[in-house]
């Protein structure tokens, strides 16, 4: 944006022995920060693995396929199947709901709204990101859940033939769907704020060129803004997904905490890694604590893998990134 005002430094000044001391200090500081980051992430991983080992050795069931969670029983029986299922499905519901809306908000702010509306709306969206998750949880439990009953009943009535929405008991509270809606609202500002920034960086020249060629505004968005912003949109979505996977207290308040894989997402049930840790930690015995840490390790790995996939997608799409335009 302000490229024209920056005078390019003379390359000779930086090279060779005449490196300024400030440069070197800053280089070392930033390298140190990078190394510290790696060390902390690694230390968390090692800590989790170390603490998880005793319970994993004691588990008399298959840790990956068992749905029940009785780590303090004799013999201990516990596994992450139900937790992994609940975590992934609530996060997916949240993503399906939040990503399109977030991108819509970002587009509106960056390319449709006039300046005053855009800055006010942007401010409000950013404000939403600062609301603590316990507030979202309490709001979801005491406001959203009672008021969503009619809507969920409507979905079940007309779409109940899809196994996902079947609900023979006709009880619509404390479900994965409701937790997913709350999570969607929580991750909305994160995704929308990042995509908005990316959309704002689309080179004005490209936009003007497409409009000059006779593109309508929507065609311009589709052919210029989206391709340019794709890596940004993906990483924004992954940031949101990371938050959704790890969200604890809001989910713990809303879900019914059932250790069972149930695809019928409008029924009471569901449980997630983070929520389960919050619900079981206080009363867990030594083996129970270790088992909870083992489940935390799995969540840590899932998040790591999700982020690595996101990086891969972004890296493959490098030709569109701002650096080359």
């Amino acid at each position, binding site marked *: 944006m302000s490229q024209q005002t920056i005078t390019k430094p003379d390359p000779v000044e930086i090279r060779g022995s005449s490196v300024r001391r400030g440069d070197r200090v800053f280089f070392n500081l930033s390298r140190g920060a990078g190394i510290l980051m790696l060390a902390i992430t690694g230390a968390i991983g090692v800590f989790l693995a170390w603490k998880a080992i005793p319970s994993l050795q004691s588990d008399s069931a298959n840790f990956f396929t068992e749905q029940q*969670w009785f780590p303090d029983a004799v013999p201990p029986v516990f596994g992450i199947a139900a937790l992994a299922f609940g975590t992934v499905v609530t996060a997916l519901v949240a993503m399906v709901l939040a990503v399109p809306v977030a991108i819509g908000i970002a587009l509106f702010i960056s390319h449709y709204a006039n300046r005053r509306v855009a800055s006010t709306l942007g401010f409000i969206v950013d404000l939403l990101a600062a609301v603590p998750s316990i507030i979202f949880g309490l709001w979801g439990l005491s406001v959203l859940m009672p008021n969503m009953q009619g809507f969920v009943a409507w979905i079940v009535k007309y779409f109940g033939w899809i196994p996902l929405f079947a609900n023979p008991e006709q009880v619509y509270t404390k479900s994965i769907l409701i937790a997913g809606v709350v999570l969607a609202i929580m991750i909305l500002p994160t995704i929308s704020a990042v995509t908005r920034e990316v959309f704002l960086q689309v080179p004005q020249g490209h936009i003007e060129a497409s409009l000059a060629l006779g593109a309508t505004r929507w065609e311009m968005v589709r052919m210029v803004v989206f391709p340019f912003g794709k890596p940004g949109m993906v990483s924004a979505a992954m940031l949101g997904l990371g938050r959704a996977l790890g969200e604890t207290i809001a989910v713990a308040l809303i879900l019914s905490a059932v250790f069972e894989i149930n695809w019928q997402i409008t029924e009471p049930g569901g449980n997630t890694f983070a929520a389960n840790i919050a619900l079981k930690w206080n*009363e867990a015995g030594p083996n129970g604590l270790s088992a909870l840490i083992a489940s935390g390790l799995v969540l840590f790995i899932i998040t790591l893998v999700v982020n690595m996939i996101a990086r891969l997608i972004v890296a493959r799409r490098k030709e569109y990134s701002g650096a080359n335009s």
Partner: protein
Amino acid sequence: MKTSRGVGILAVTAAGVLAVAACSSGGSASGNSIKASGSSAQKNAMTEWINSYQQANSGSTIDYQANGSGAGIQDFINNQTSFAGSDSAIKDADLQKASQRCGTGPAINIPMVGGAIVVAFNVAGVEKLDLSSSVVAQIFSGKITKWNAPAIASLNPGVKLPDAAIVQFHRSDSSGTTDNFTKYLQASAAKDWTTAPGKDWTAPGGQGAKGNDGVASSVKSTPNSVGYMELSFAQDSKIPMAAINNGGGAVMPTTETAQAGLASATVVGTGNDLSLKIDYANKAPGAYPIVLVTYEITCEKGLQGGALTLTKSFLQYTASDSAQGMLSGIGYVPLPASLLTKVNSSVNSIS
């Protein structure tokens, strides 16, 4: 920009982890200040007691953190606290570790706060409901699914029960409340309650809510619902409670009936260890059967210096008639006189 955000978030997470790790260390006691932690069930009683104790003994500080019985016992074993509050008596491996921490003397369970678990319901137009233990077990195990089921109706002649499905709430978190409630169901309705008792709810069906407050607010806001919770939560939320018939007539849960229920508890601990066995199948008329006791766990011998003086003095205060008398006003149950005498001699033995 993307990267810096990611790094920021990770850094904040890591800082949080470090902060939590830093918090968990800390000394047990110094001078006239002690730390304690454990059961959240006795939190309100502790808060009241600590307040009035500190007012009477200025300069003394007692810090009770209600982080759950399991965590409280671990804190005590790790020498971070002078006593632990717990919903169930410490035993077996934990007792051995706790006694090792005490060094010279065994760790002992001292009952201190009584409580009652009530079955509270929200059915339009119904204020009073009599339930037998067997019916309670059938409701919570999903065998009775309608409010107008013959089993409920025959116990409540003249009460107009709706033809509506029963919405059952239980605890989604691990808790001593669930532990005591399921022990009661197993002891007094073994035929209708077949899942093993424990801190985690294992029966099929129903919906989980977090904490006593979560169950109370869920029942309060859901028509045709029922849930179990501690007495004070039902009282505070003004939710009607069921009278329980354990074979000796229906008994409403009140401080007095629960105290009568507690009187049937027998001491199974040896020496100054006052572990109790509660008679959940209690049929005595006027005795409410679903009662619980929370313990203070400390060293009979082995506390040192200021921690010893203050722990003993504080527990002597909590076992006094005036401190026990405060309990009924805040939804707890004072210990029956016969038990309180034993508690006092046990506390006096701490040295």
